[in-house]
């Protein structure tokens, strides 16, 4: 069971590397789907069964379909390397390394491996999340539904051929 986390973590990292370093956008999108599915397995290992399936249904099964269809619609070809700006590369890489090092240092200092016993497995099924969602978080829930409506309207208007 513990080995499963490391296996799927390795798969997720390799797929994320593929997302970042692939030249063809379609392969990046497919690698992102692999990342999403392996993260869904990690959520399952953490006991979040409802969110794992929601991640696959909504994120990997709907949002990424949107990405893939747009890539196919726009016929996005392979990227050609550019030399318009070296600043991003020369300044970005060390800063990114510094950000990563800082996050990892904080994490390893605050949560040394021995000191965090796992809480007992809680009921993370749809009923429990539904209770929280419709009692404590009912206002964000309703606002989110309006947000989705606005997003739909915006997407339809923006993607029209003629306004």
């Amino acid at each position: 069971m513990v080995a499963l986390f490391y296996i799927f973590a390795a798969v997720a990292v390799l797929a994320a590397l593929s997302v970042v370093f692939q030249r063809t956008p379609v392969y990046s999108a497919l690698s992102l789907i692999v990342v999403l599915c392996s993260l869904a397995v990690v959520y399952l290992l953490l006991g979040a069964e409802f969110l794992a399936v929601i991640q696959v249904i909504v994120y990997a099964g709907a949002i990424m379909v949107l990405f893939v269809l747009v890539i196919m619609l726009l016929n996005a070809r392979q990227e050609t390397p550019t030399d318009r700006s070296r600043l991003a590369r020369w300044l970005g890489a060390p800063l990114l390394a510094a950000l990563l090092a800082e996050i990892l240092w904080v994490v390893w200092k605050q949560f040394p491996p021995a000191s965090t016993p796992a809480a007992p497995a809680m009921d993370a099924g749809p009923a429990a999340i539904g209770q929280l969602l419709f009692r404590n978080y009912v206002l964000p829930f309703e606002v989110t539904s309006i947000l989705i409506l606005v997003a739909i309207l915006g997407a339809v208007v923006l993607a029209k051929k003629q306004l």
Partner: protein
Amino acid sequence: MATFFDQHFLFLISLAKVAVVLLVLLTIIAYLSWLERKLIAHIQARWGPYLVGPHGLLQPIADGLKFLFKEDVVPLEVDRVLYWLAPFLAFTLAFLSIAVIPFGEGFTFRGHTIQFQITDLNVGLLFIFAVTSLGVYSITLAGWSSNSKYPLFGGLRSSAQMISYELTLGLAVVGVLMIAGTLSLRGIVESQRGFWHLGGIPILPRWNVFVQPIGFLAYFTAAVAETNRIPFDLPEGETELVGGFHTEYSSFKFAMFFMAEYANMVTVSCLATLLFLGGWSGPVFGPSVLRVLLPIFWFGLKVFCFLFFYIWMRGTLPRFRYDQLMSFGWKFLLPVALLNIVATSFVVAWLNA
């Protein structure tokens, strides 16, 4: 004293279940193709396959051999990775959703209970929807990677159709979930046990099809659209788009798409049986061996009814035009499913008050 069998019980039994289910499913798919050809032939007043074996019963074996030995033609400009990935993805996903489908009650063997289900997830129904929503990619990638007009149109149309009807598929089932109160498939079947009584006489089994008729119709229509069958098979219709998304595929890869489509049909029929027709409920009598096997027989009979209906529709109905298909899905079926949810929730809340 615990033997090797007892210690590694779960692992061995799961392995055995997977092997049995795969073998049975492959045989069912092979003979489903025979059944389809025979039924459609008889609907069209002709014989169908009858040369190979009695009544053409060995035809699937001949077809399988043909697919194995046929020349594999790969066009020049295809995207290699995606071209090979798409049929294998379709095949794998189609067989993955069988893992949570229960076929019958369990039995005990040497103190261990063995259920007729590979695994019972708490969110079993959502797992099947997750696998279905990943199945859109296989068709999209097949159409895109073939680098040719007809597959591209077929692939894009089919993926748009599938994601539209997925919504209705999910929403049509919510009424059943409100009644059953659980997402586990075994739990949903358990909630349909027993009969409704009128004056002490049981008249009607507690199947969800009697309580949720609109949900049942919406589910089955959306399921036919999801599996790309007539009347919703415009993306692969022979008279419309040559072969649709599988035009450029030959021999073994085409066979994989073919098998994936039949496996999806079987999964959807099993799900319809579990959700609406009470699963494996039926008269059970006799010695204990018969008591274990009879539920599986009733389950198989109900699934066979759905498959027969699928094939019957293929032989009888014309196909939808693409814009008719999309407007039917979004403007009629989705509002109907939503209204069904609203009505069911009112009734359930009123009955529980």
